[in-house]
């Protein structure tokens, strides 16, 4: 335990494998070359959007297991989640793999929650290896939270574009095998050194089409808690990377943290901003969804750590807590953010 809400792992789990599966739009984005599988078929061979997301997640899990060189029986637990009601994308997606599993929900922050929880299981000695996976699908999310796809309406400029993608990571107790099939010789191994589970933070924003503003206070709270709990300054990290705050949320989180005495402007990145080119791809404020931070981590961020470009990062996926019901009943949209500390060794 560190400080008031953080965890410093005694035996930091090693990330032995990572896989990312994305849709065509993400593949055409600036990070396209970092993803393992880019599917031109938005249905992933399935019959409905929900089925498509399940197939995409299954593909990501299988890719991660293949890259690790382990058999699937060696994966002791799977920790996964998505955005669809009752986590159906996850449950139907991993059903056939029959790995003992935990379903987790943290809206778009789920990758932080699942990776952190998998690391807790491994560090605590309850598992040799654990797999963390999340996904989101643009069409499934639009159908559930907004309008049918073919309905004609205008999206606000602060709105984000749900990423079609699934990212899976395997954490292990032992360093052996920490280089997966893609790691080149001389590259670094990556381990999870700590985490800061977030609190729910509600600043009373009711606009679900401006999720960056809903989630920025939560990101600020978690980042400040992490720095405080570990007694470090922002320069302890090469990069502090939020999940899907987008352009609007980025401006807010930097301003809020500056006012609290932490200047992160020169080292802040946001997965939602990284994943699309907003000028060419018409994505307004950026990407969002569980898949956004998951595929950016599994594809791009880990690569930067492995090549040694960055030594240490704070990965802070952010989630907006709402359902179509809570929104219609006039509730605000609180945010939550979970921070995971990754280090290249």
């Amino acid at each position, binding site marked *: 335990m560190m400080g008031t809400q953080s965890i410093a792992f005694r035996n930091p789990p090693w990330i032995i494998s990572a896989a990312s599966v994305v849709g065509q739009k993400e593949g055409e984005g600036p990070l396209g070359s970092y993803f393992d599988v880019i599917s031109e078929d938005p249905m992933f061979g399935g019959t409905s959007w929900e089925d498509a997301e399940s197939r995409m997640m299954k593909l990501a899990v299988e890719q991660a297991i293949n890259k690790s060189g382990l058999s699937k029986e060696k994966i002791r637990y799977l920790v996964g989640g998505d955005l669809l009601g009752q986590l159906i994308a996850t449950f139907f997606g991993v059903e056939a793999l029959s790995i003992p599993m935990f379903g987790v929900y943290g809206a778009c922050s789920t990758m932080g929650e699942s990776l952190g929880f998998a690391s807790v299981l491994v560090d605590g000695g309850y598992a040799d290896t654990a797999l963390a996976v999340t996904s989101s699908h643009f069409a499934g999310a639009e159908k559930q939270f907004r309008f049918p796809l073919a309905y004609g309406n*205008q999206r606000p400029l602060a709105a984000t574009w749900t990423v079609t993608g699934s990212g899976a990571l395997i954490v292990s107790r032992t360093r052996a095998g920490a280089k997966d099939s893609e790691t080149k010789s001389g590259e670094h191994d990556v381990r999870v050194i700590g985490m800061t589970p977030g609190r729910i933070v509600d*600043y*009373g924003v009711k606009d679900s089409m401006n999720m960056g503003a809903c989630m920025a206070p939560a990101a600020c709270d978690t980042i400040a808690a992490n720095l405080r709990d570990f007694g470090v300054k922002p320069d302890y990290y090469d990069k502090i990377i939020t999940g899907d705050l987008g352009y609007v949320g980025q401006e807010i989180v930097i301003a809020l943290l500056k006012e609290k005495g932490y200047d992160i402007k020169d080292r802040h990145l946001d997965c939602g901003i990284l994943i699309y080119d907003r000028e060419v791809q018409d994505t307004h404020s950026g990407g969002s969804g569980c898949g956004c931070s998951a595929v950016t981590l599994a594809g791009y961020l880990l690569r930067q750590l492995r090549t040694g470009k960055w030594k240490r990062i704070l990965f802070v996926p952010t989630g907006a807590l709402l359902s179509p019901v809570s929104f219609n009943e006039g509730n605000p949209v609180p945010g939550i953010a979970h921070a995971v500390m990754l280090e290249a060794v």
Partner: protein
Amino acid sequence: MEKEKQVKEVLSAKNKTERDQKYNEYVKQVTPKHSCLKNTCNAFWTGGIICTIGQGLTYLYMSFGLDKENAVLYQIISLVFLSVLFTGLNLYPRIAKVAGAGSVVPITGFANSVAAPAIEYQKEGQVFGIGCKIFTIAGPVILYGIVSSWILGLIYYVLGLLGIV
């Protein structure tokens, strides 16, 4: 500088109500908005084009020898058909992105709002999918359209009894 002051006020607010209010004011400042003038102009010309097509169709059908009432009926059917066709081809959302209210207000917008759920929920079955959800967007328009026409009818009736109309 104005924004910095607002951030200070958010974090130094005495209670949650004040903080939330200050934060929402600040969010309003940093959130980009569509240009109202540009949107209005786009809605004007796109809506105008749709209505002009409708008028052209009416004249066309009248030139086939239909009386005006029947020509208008055929015109409406044609526009609804075109809208549903464009919805099915996924072209309507692209038009709506530029047009805004210009493509929502004419009858083509109503047709789109019925066709889109029909396509989306078809996977959930004929009854619980299409049957239950086809009017998820258009439903309120139908319900409150009927209610308001009923109220207007009542007013018309009362005014008639009073000999005003």
